[in-house]
């Protein structure tokens, strides 16, 4: 019992994710079938890939508000270039490198100028949206290769596995992130830097390098998410990532990683991604329109965060 009590904040998000699934399955007929489980996994994987970098930046004590803009940029650049005949094996890596560069610049500026990353990444996002508009003038044709569409299709297969590639990619990413967080120098530095930025400097943690690399990871993964979403929506759409500002942050916080950093993990964010996706599917299943969905989602997130907020507060008092 004591064991459970001590780990309540770790267990809670996963318990909620499972509970929510069972409730939805009971309420909505047909929710428990294979297809809806596959779509739950697919939607969660897209959110999970977009939230991975966000989790690490938040643990480190930063925040990346440029995620939706980089998603939009990647989506448009990839679909437009492919539509004009560029090979996906050329444009894909270019787009990802562009995301990495945007992220690196975010980290570099935030750290070297000591400007809050909230402001820097918000500014970067604005610049990117402006640049997309200037380039395309709102005329966003373009197309995506069939392989990519299959990669993010609910009925897609990965070799013999009855799951789309996106889900498999997410699984691999989870493994990499768990190792990164626990077993790498970068991971330990990130936690230390988020836990006590003043002490991190005096403990000889190279903050500038750390911030640049972590934000670059976030930028790169946002670009990957953008390419996947291009496949999902089959077109160049700069607004495709807009929902991901709120949902990536929510996934991190609902998972139980405090927004001030220093604690938490990507494993928790996985639970957060499932909770958000399940909530959305539940609300759609209940027949709520998009406006009502947003209101409900907002309320539910405040309730969940309030629960974790209390948890963090008690621990902070040690």
């Amino acid at each position, binding site marked *: 019992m004591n064991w459970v009590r001590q780990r309540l904040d770790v267990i809670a998000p996963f318990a909620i994710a499972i509970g929510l699934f069972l409730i939805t399955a009971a309420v909505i007929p047909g929710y428990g079938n294979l297809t809806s489980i596959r779509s739950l996994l697919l939607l969660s994987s897209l959110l999970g890939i977009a939230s991975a970098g966000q989790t690490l930046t938040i643990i480190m004590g930063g925040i990346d508000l440029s995620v939706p803009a980089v998603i939009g940029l990647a989506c448009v650049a990839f679909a437009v270039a492919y539509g004009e005949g560029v090979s996906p094996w050329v444009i894909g890596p270019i787009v990802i490198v562009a995301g990495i560069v945007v992220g690196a610049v975010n980290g570099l500026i935030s750290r070297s100028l000591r400007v809050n990353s909230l402001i820097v990444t918000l500014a970067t996002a604005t610049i990117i949206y402006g640049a997309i508009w200037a380039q395309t003038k709102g005329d966003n044709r373009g197309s995506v290769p069939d392989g990519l569409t299959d990669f993010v299709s609910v009925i897609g297969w990965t070799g013999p596995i009855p799951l789309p590639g996106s889900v498999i990619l997410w699984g691999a990413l989870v493994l990499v992130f768990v190792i990164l967080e626990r*077993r*790498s120098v970068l991971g*330990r530095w990130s936690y230390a830097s988020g836990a*006590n930025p*003043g002490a*991190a*400097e005096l*403990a000889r*943690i190279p903050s500038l390098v750390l911030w640049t690399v972590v934000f670059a990871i976030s930028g790169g993964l946002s670009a990957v998410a953008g390419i996947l979403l291009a496949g999902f929506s089959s077109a160049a759409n700069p607004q495709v990532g807009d929902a991901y500002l709120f949902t990536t942050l929510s996934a991190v916080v609902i998972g139980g990683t405090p927004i001030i950093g220093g604690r938490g993990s990507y494993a928790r964010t996985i639970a957060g991604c499932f909770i958000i996706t399940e909530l959305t599917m539940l609300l759609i299943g209940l027949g709520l329109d998009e406006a009502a969905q947003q209101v409900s989602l907002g309320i539910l997130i405040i309730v969940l965060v309030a629960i974790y907020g209390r948890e963090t507060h008690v621990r902070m008092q040690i």
Partner: protein
Amino acid sequence: MSEIAVEETAPAAPAVTPLVAFRGLRRNFGETIALADCSFDIVPGEIHALVGENGSGKSTLIKILSGILAESGGELIWDGKVTRIADPRAAQQAGIATVFQETLVLDQLSVRDNVVLGLDRLFRRVQSTADETRVVREALDTIGMGALDPDMPLGALSLAQRQGVTIARALLRPWRLLVLDESTSALDVDARDRLFEALRRFRGEGRSILFVSHRMDEILDIADRSTVLRSGRSVATVTRADTTTNRLLELMSTHEEAQAAEGAVPTAPQRAVGAAVVTAKSVEIVAGSGPFDLAVRAGEIVGIAGLEGHGQVAFIEAVAGLRNPAQGAVETDRGVVTSFLNAARAGIAYLPRERKTQGIFAPLSVLDNLTISALGRFSRLGLLAEARRRAEGMRLIAQSHVTTPGLAAPVAALSGGNQQKVFLGRLLALTPRVLVLNDPMRGVDLGAKQDIYKILEQFASAGGAVMLLSTELAELCLLCDRVAVFHNRSLFAVIERQALNEQALIAAMFGQTAAARGAG
């Protein structure tokens, strides 16, 4: 020691009711006792000095008197009635005006606005600007700063002028007791003399002043009586006639604590002293404070002492590469120290003073806290070799005498003393040549202190050099081969082990040379 009654030396008659009396006043912060037992009184029309070294409880007493802290026990009798001063507003209403040690000013506001700060209501000004200007001028004139432009922003003023503004602010209140907490430290001689003239005038009007200063000459000059605090106790109140520098220094020092701690530590350490590892050459902490040299050799523990704000902290920060001295340089055999990183490369490891904000990563494990600065040693291509890291963690735990449920326990779950030992272990993981420690025993329990003593002894015996800044004099006497005492932002004296005792340290901290004390 009983209190000595005020006789002909003070203008006030001894029979009058004291304006304020403290009876066994106590205050503790958790287990730390800041004020143990403080009893004395201040009569109307008296300038009363409060004397004591760092941490003797002066500031705590003043904060209780100003309504910032509540007492934990004992009585404060204001104007004949037992009173609890609930908040700063209550203090102001009672007629207590305090000028604090820190110059509490707003840089963006003008001199006038800073002086009248707090006199206005939220939405309504009490006085017109012209009236304010006149009043502010008068108040500033009291301390010889009448020429100061009331419209000047505070940010543009010198430290002395800023201090003047805080004094003027207090003077504007209708006060009966003025508390000056080291408020004269930044004033130049002229402004100070003007202030003292004013204080004597106020005394003539029957108003009282509680005066805290670290300067013996000021106390001898102006105080009618002086109360000495030592380790939170009021040990004596002496009248002007009985006040000599020697007597005050004697009353301030204590030997008990030193003796209490001595038993558990290897006495009279015999260490092989090697070549100089760090050398300060003609270092001037701020421009004009006077250059000095100091060398720290391998196998040596050199103490760094001084009253707060006398440059000793700035000096060790310069050694750690956290700031540059105004003149001169700190050198190692690997060149001049110019930055924190370059000091680190030369083998200088620095332990900052604030464990909570500058040291410990509270949610992280003991292992992470120990190894975070040395992760490069346990990693290949950025991935950690956990077995090696854990082995090193175990070694550091043993070396630093850390008591912990395990390497994975969050460091926040340890006691303050164990956290400090983990912090020290992090420095040892770097295998430094020089440890620069900023008050490492502060807020640490006795057992942990003795462990830290052992760590430092072992480090020095193995050929390391230690610079130990401490505010606890008994400790400096116990551990150090010699102690460098700072006064007025420069090195004042280096006291060698054979001459090392608390009284010698206190005398040097107060800027008294042995010869001057003999004459005093």
